């Protein structure tokens, strides 16, 4: 089931997305929060889309990379540690993924501009939230 939520500001968006991690104890961001690596990865994709172009892999458009960057900054401001992995989803989107034992939490920036966060435990979906771009 997809939920539509009118989160307008970046702060609202991040607050909504991090609801998914209340069940897994992610480390709080410290001085070495690792967000620098994530932002460098995103900047590289934004400046050279050919880095990811491959058979069956669609590079994320710049607006999707920007959305990931902005949300990442907001998550960082919320004290969330950097994702363990930042990967393309293959369909022009980007996924941030955190892991803690048998649980994983993913924020996915889809190519259509929607954002989805989901919590998995031992391979099973536990919780999912979606944000959709507002028209106009």
């Amino acid at each position, binding site marked *: 089931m997809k939920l539509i939520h009118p989160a307008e500001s970046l702060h609202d968006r991040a607050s909504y997305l991090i609801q998914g991690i209340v069940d897994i104890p992610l480390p709080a961001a410290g001085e070495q929060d690792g967000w620098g690596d994530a932002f460098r990865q995103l900047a590289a994709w934004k400046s050279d889309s050919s*880095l*990811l172009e*491959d*058979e*069956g*892999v*669609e590079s994320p458009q710049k607006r999707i990379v920007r959305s990931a960057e902005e949300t990442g900054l907001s998550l960082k401001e919320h004290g969330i540690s950097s994702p363990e*992995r*930042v*990967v*393309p*989803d*293959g*369909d022009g989107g980007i*996924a941030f*993924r955190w892991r803690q034992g048998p649980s994983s939490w993913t924020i996915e920036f889809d190519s259509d501009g929607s954002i989805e966060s989901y919590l998995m435990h031992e391979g099973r979906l536990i919780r999912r939230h979606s944000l959709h771009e507002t028209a106009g």
Partner: protein
Amino acid sequence: MANGNDPVNPDEILFRRIPASTGWYRPGDSPPLEPEAFRPNKNDITGLSVFREKYISTERAAQGRPGKSYFVAVFRAGDLIDAGMRVVPRPLEDHPGHAEIESLT
């Protein structure tokens, strides 16, 4: 050798090519493989592409676009079938060993 339309035997070995640039596979990480490596994309209409070892070498399976690097995931068809997935032969003109995992799309 058959033309690629022969049914996939559960004992067959299958290959799945994973572009190195995506970071979907990172040796040394735990787990090393991200689910995106096996997630059908919008072009995978009928199924997820794999190659059959009986028709193609690992080295050939690892050849994609010029200048790009790839990992090759190796697995047994029977393990997919046991998990409820269907693996069907889908030979291509230049790849008789092409098959698809149907139940993911």
